[in-house]
């Protein structure tokens, strides 16, 4: 479900602002100057050639991007892009002012839905995660929460994409190890869209790509960026910037580098195919200087993400933000606290995609239980974000006069109408002591597990509706990929 920016006359949306206009201008200029003076490594010959042809200075792998190239790229980024699901229905509009929360890609571990223990992520998990996300009303797009371990090494991404796209009617975000797998994911998208031209008209997934912080676009990240731009696949191009380690520990410095890293992808994509959709942002958090972990629960993650959202909007681009994640390993107060704060901050800042809802253990373990918990928090945050309607009807002066001092509003038609708009919990406990006791004193953890297992057991999703012919073609693409990987890998002899 999308969150629409509320009507500014009736309903003043409570968005907070972190940065002043002057601060935004200075960070923006810092990014412009960094790309021009420091530049970035681009490990991709074609991308470097294109940048050089358009006025960038190239020295070895390093590219210095002049201000006019950045401004030109920003002028051709589309203001809005529509995504569709595999059934061809509009599933999302990528534009400033609409917010979609979802999970994130590639943690190696996963919390087993039955045992609640950490284990490797399996192929069956991908379809299950897609189905559960499909069922959750506040989750706006689908991603995997893991990297499949039980398929041919190097094809985890492709199997995930093939399984997830069929198991959801929501927008799908897919990642890829390399450009070959990215092309195969595109081919699956084309099969379901009914042709390449149809896919361009109605793209049914968005690609997620990631340069390496600080300021390195490696070959794989850049080749996928080029491929997506060429074929008009909407894409995310975002770093994971680590405050104090890969970027400055000062937040302003982090924003400058984080923005610059992503902007390289924007410039290349727009030079290759002006008007192609690029979303930037990324994980913006700090290195914990005691544990040397990249913190997913730090308040700085919320602060930096909200500030970067303002900067990305300042540049006229949609933002890929982060929330609903935690550093802890189990469902407990910490996971709820960290998720609630980051979800609330992301909701108020108004990023377009907000990922990692369902990340635990600092991004190393995906948990569908965390996603289910986050779904409830997102609902609560949305209730706040929607603000207060102020008009004649909502001011209710007539009702106030009629009820008068000492009366009650429970029997008013007005109450029947407006009480419907109150947020209703699905997981939060508001039972009486007696009811809670009778139910066996369930804690939040118990309620989340019950709700999650209930969805896994009973929610079917749209996979059964995928035409047999399309499924056959997808299987053929997977088989070809298996063959390609087999022929590429050298025979090994383990002693």
């Amino acid at each position, binding site marked *: 479900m999308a969150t629409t920016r509320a009507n500014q006359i009736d309903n003043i949306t409570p968005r907070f602002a972190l940065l002043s206009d002057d601060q935004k201008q200075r960070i923006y200029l810092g990014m412009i100057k960094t790309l021009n003076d420091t530049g970035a490594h681009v490990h991709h010959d074609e991308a470097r050639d294109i940048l050089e042809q358009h006025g960038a200075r190239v020295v070895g792998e390093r590219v210095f991007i002049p201000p006019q190239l950045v401004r030109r790229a920003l002028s051709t980024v589309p203001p809005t892009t529509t995504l569709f699901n595999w059934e061809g229905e509009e599933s999302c509009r990528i534009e400033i002012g609409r917010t979609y929360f979802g999970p994130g890609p590639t943690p190696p571990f996963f919390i087993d839905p039955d045992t609640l223990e950490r284990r490797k992520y399996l192929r069956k998990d991908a379809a299950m995660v897609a189905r559960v996300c499909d069922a959750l009303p506040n989750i706006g797009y689908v991603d995997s929460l893991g990297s499949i371990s039980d398929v041919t090494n190097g094809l985890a991404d492709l199997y995930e994409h093939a399984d997830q796209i069929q198991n959801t009617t929501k927008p799908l975000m897919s990642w890829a190890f390399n450009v070959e797998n990215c092309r195969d994911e595109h081919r699956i998208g084309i099969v379901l869209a009914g042709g390449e031209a149809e896919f361009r008209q109605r793209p049914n997934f968005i690609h997620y790509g990631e340069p390496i912080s600080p300021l390195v676009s490696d070959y794989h990240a850049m080749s996928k960026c080029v491929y997506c731009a060429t074929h008009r696949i909407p894409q995310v191009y975002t770093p994971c910037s680590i405050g104090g380690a890969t970027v400055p520990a000062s937040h302003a410095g982090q924003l400058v580098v984080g923005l610059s890293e992503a902007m390289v992808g924007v410039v290349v994509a727009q030079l290759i195919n002006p008007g192609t959709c690029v979303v930037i942002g990324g994980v913006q958090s700090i290195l914990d200087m005691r544990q*040397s972990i990249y913190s997913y629960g730090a308040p700085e993650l919320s602060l930096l993400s909200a500030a970067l959202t303002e900067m990305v909007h300042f540049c006229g681009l949609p933002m890929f933000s982060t929330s609903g994640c935690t550093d802890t390993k189990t469902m407990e107060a910490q996971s709820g606290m960290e998720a609630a704060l980051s979800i609330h901050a992301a909701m108020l800042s108004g990023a377009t995609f907000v990922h990692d809802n369902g990340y635990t253990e600092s991004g190393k373990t995906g948990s569908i239980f965390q996603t289910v918990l986050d779904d409830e928090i997102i609902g609560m945050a949305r209730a706040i974000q929607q603000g207060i309607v102020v008009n004649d009807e909502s001011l209710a002066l007539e009702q106030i006069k009629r009820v008068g001092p000492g009366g009650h509003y429970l029997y008013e038609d007005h109450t029947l109408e407006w009480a419907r708009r109150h947020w209703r919990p699905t997981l939060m406990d508001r039972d009486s002591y007696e009811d809670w006791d009778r139910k066996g004193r369930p804690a939040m953890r118990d309620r989340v597990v019950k709700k999650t297992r209930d969805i896994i057991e009973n929610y079917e999703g749209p996979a059964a509706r995928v035409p047999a012919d399309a499924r056959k073609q997808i299987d053929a693409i997977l088989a070809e990929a298996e063959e390609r990987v087999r022929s590429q890998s050298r025979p090994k002899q383990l*002693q």
Partner: protein
Amino acid sequence: MSTSSTCSQISEALIAGRQEELLKHIHSALEQGTEAEQIMNEGLVAAMDAVGQRWKAGDMFLPEVIRSAKAMSGAMEIIRPKLIESNVKTMGTFVIGTVLRDLHDIGKNLVAMMMEGAGFKVVNLGIDLEPQVFVDAVKEHKPDILGMSALLTTTMPQMGEVINALKEAGIRDQVKIIVGGAPVTEEFAQEIGADVYAANAAATVDKVKAMMSAA
């Protein structure tokens, strides 16, 4: 000035991460005739132990620890040749790199710096390295420990390739191998035939020290 007060000055400078001052104290200690072994044990090792303890206790943070580690590395460049001259056992050599098709640098560098802090001679090979680079480095530097890093599930198997290449070159037994990186696990380390897995930079130092003292 007494030898012990010089050693405490050395410790103090090292804990504070003031490299210039540290090197000055070491030079003057050597000029006064203090043995390298004494500087090492009473000055440097004592200080780095204190740094480790303070870090674990939360009194020191990573950037401070790294400063001390870099200072230690500078100090060891002076001390190590003297220890070797007088046949004193040194902490040994550690070679580290990120495997082929993986450009991730930061975690590997963190391990390298922490190992320098522990007194090892560290050869940091870089990123995106062919197995042969590791083989050549083992031949050239004759390290006690070889460390490998990978952040991607696709590049993780390259660690196994390096181990195979070392076997083919007939030098697998000459070096202990430690592996790490976000997706790497204990189980994976065993699968590919590495000796040790470490979850992070601090654990690397502890595990390597344990391995060295067991050897």
